[in-house]
């Protein structure tokens, strides 16, 4: 078995400049580029090879890079993450796919106890540059365990970075930065938005020299640390990430028709959280509503509400409100839209905040 070779099957050239891609294909492109740029990058998961993944996000990668680098694993999530830890200790950079959000829990020990803590336990001697991609979130009419949002469970664990892009451009850039990061990254993909298209700025391909990658020096870390203001506004700050950002943007557009100016902050990351950006926004608007699909109880929104209250106390015109899932298991598909924070529930919270 030799995989250090960089020779590949003849395939389509890499796009350059700015191109329009669905979110899923922006992720594919980021992986394809990483596989080409670093012979140590591996893609591993259930059905990621021959099938190209159940969402086709790894489509074509095995044909291009071979079975030793794009690996169809046994159907065992703990085994996927656990063996990736060993591969990373040997110098590899595994990019893992957990097939669905609700299937990640067999790997919970390996992620929270092993992966998250190895750098700490070894006094920094071992880095585990592992990315765990997880299609997450609801709204696709799926059967149970296929629509969950487990981010708070992982954000609560020191040693992990937990991120979620909301659009194709961020999906591409954030995955590139996640693969380059020496820290383990849980990369939550809004599966309900996989086929939303948008412009993607493609980084130039940086092929390895003598088997050694040259790309990482040029890849930053900003998208794994910083939130962005997705829409500026003056009356209220909507804080969202991943699949809730398009909802927040739609709410801001609807509110604008009634003369309300809402600012939308796309967090991008839930560990860390870019509080300076959130705080600066709320100090200007005086109001804050947090939106996420995960249950609000002990959720990311609770952490944001606490910190905003602490740091914006004298600027707040209303208590921070949260809109999200309920303290129930994810419900059946026929009523999931009553559980998810849709446009109407977000606007209801906005009204309550503005009326306070």
């Amino acid at each position, binding site marked *: 078995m030799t995989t250090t070779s960089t020779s590949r099957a003849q395939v389509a050239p890499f796009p350059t400049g700015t191109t329009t891609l669905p979110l899923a294909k922006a992720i594919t492109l980021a992986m394809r580029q990483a596989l080409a740029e670093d012979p140590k990058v591996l893609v591993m998961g259930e059905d990621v090879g021959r099938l190209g993944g159940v969402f086709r996000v790894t489509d074509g990668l095995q044909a291009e890079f071979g079975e030793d680098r794009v690996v169809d694993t046994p159907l065992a999530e*703990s085994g996927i993450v656990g*063996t990736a830890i*060993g591969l990373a*200790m040997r110098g590899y950079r595994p990019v893992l796919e957990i097939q669905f959000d609700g299937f990640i829990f067999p790997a919970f020990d390996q992620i929270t106890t*092993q992966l998250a803590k190895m750098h700490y336990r070894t006094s920094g001697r071992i880095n585990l540059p592992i990315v765990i991609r997880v299609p997450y979130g609801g709204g696709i009419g799926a059967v149970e365990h296929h629509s969950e949002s487990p981010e708070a469970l992982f954000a609560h664990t020191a040693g992990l970075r937990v991120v979620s892009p909301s659009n194709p451009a961020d999906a591409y850039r954030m995955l590139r930065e996640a693969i380059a990061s020496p820290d383990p990254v849980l990369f939550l993909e809004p599966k309900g938005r996989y086929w939303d298209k948008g412009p993607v700025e493609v980084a130039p391909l940086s092929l390895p020299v003598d088997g050694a990658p040259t790309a990482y020096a040029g890849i930053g870390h900003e998208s794994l640390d910083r939130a962005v203001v997705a829409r500026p506004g003056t009356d209220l700050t909507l804080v969202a990430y991943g699949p809730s950002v398009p909802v927040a943007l739609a709410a801001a557009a609807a509110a604008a028709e009634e003369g309300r100016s809402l600012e939308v902050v796309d967090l991008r990351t839930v560990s860390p959280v870019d509080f300076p950006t959130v705080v600066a926004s709320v100090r200007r608007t005086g109001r804050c509503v947090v939106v996420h699909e995960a249950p609000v109880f002990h959720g990311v929104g609770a952490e944001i509400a606490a910190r905003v209250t602490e740091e914006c106390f004298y600027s707040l015109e209303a208590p921070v409100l949260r809109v999200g899932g309920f303290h129930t298991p994810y419900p059946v598909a026929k009523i999931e839209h009553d559980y998810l924070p849709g446009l109407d529930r977000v606007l209801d919270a906005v009204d309550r905040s503005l009326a306070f």
Partner: protein
Amino acid sequence: MTDDATDTTGPDVPMVQLLTPAGERTTDPRWEPYRERAAHLDHGHVRDLWRDMVLVRAFDDEATSLQRQGQLGLWAQCLGQEAAQVGSGRALAPQDYVFPSYREHGVAHTRGVDLAEILRLFRGVDHGGWDGEAHRFHNYTLVIGSHTLHATGYAMGVQRDGVVGTGDPTVDTAVVTYFGDGATAQGDVNEALVFAAVNQAPLVLFCQNNQFAISETNERQFRVPVARRGEGFGVPGVRVDGNDVLASYAVTQEALERARSGGGPSLVEAFTFRMGAHTTSDDPTRYRTRELEQTWRDRDPIARVEAMLRREDGWDDAWAAQVREEAADLGARVRETVRSMPAPAAASMFDHVYATPHAILEDERAAFAEYESGFADGGAR
């Protein structure tokens, strides 16, 4: 020894044995291949193995005392398992990589780890304690069985690096993971067997069956003997007398060679006995008899090597006295080293959580520093 084994879960599984508890060489023709593997071990080599085991036991005794004196928070003895650990550890090549559980002090010794460093973990001054990469001996893993998957993945990396089956003994690399009989019930150990088999990874899964998962006997963990568990996964298994250092060496060497040559993973069951408690917090009198403990004291792995050397005129009293003195010195040095291990600075808890700065952690680090600085003007807290 197969005939008088006390276990009831695998009495019909043949057990490789080269030395009887009385120190006699066995003659069973089935073990001839292993006899050949150990044939190059002359009396000098065997004395070295005896010395290894004596040093490890002295260290183990010292650590137990240190815990009783309040110098350690906890200690997990390897008492009685020295032959399985030293025998297998001495079969390793320098380039091989070991993923231990938390009782493998004997293996640590064979990998050149300063034994005192192990106590950093048990004293509570460090979560690891030694440079795993330097010794090719990873830090201990306390969650049972989790590390067997890390070993499997590491072996998959070794495979991808092209250092398996080259025929060069200085290059070809195997990975060994140690775990106990209780761990065989864990999902991760079973997944490790699946992944290792599917990938034909260069891995040796070395199970020390010390017959007790804290208080639970083998009957509470499995109904098929460990050595046979591999069959269903497509991993060849073998049972060895874990109190026989020569057999442990030979059996491990065979499995390592299979791994390094590209022959895939193996499962070794070293049948032994945890002569001490699970840890210093445990009380074995609640779940096993003194008669059973005495039965196994009579099979002491160190005593049988001495008996063999005496029987074969390979013993040297003056040399043995020297080793015992060396062991006493080791104990004294460990005692001194441990007592002088300071607690780390409180603020060090914020170090090495991430390899890159994480804003939340950095905020907390700064806030803690500010809080601490409030006591700088002589105030105690």
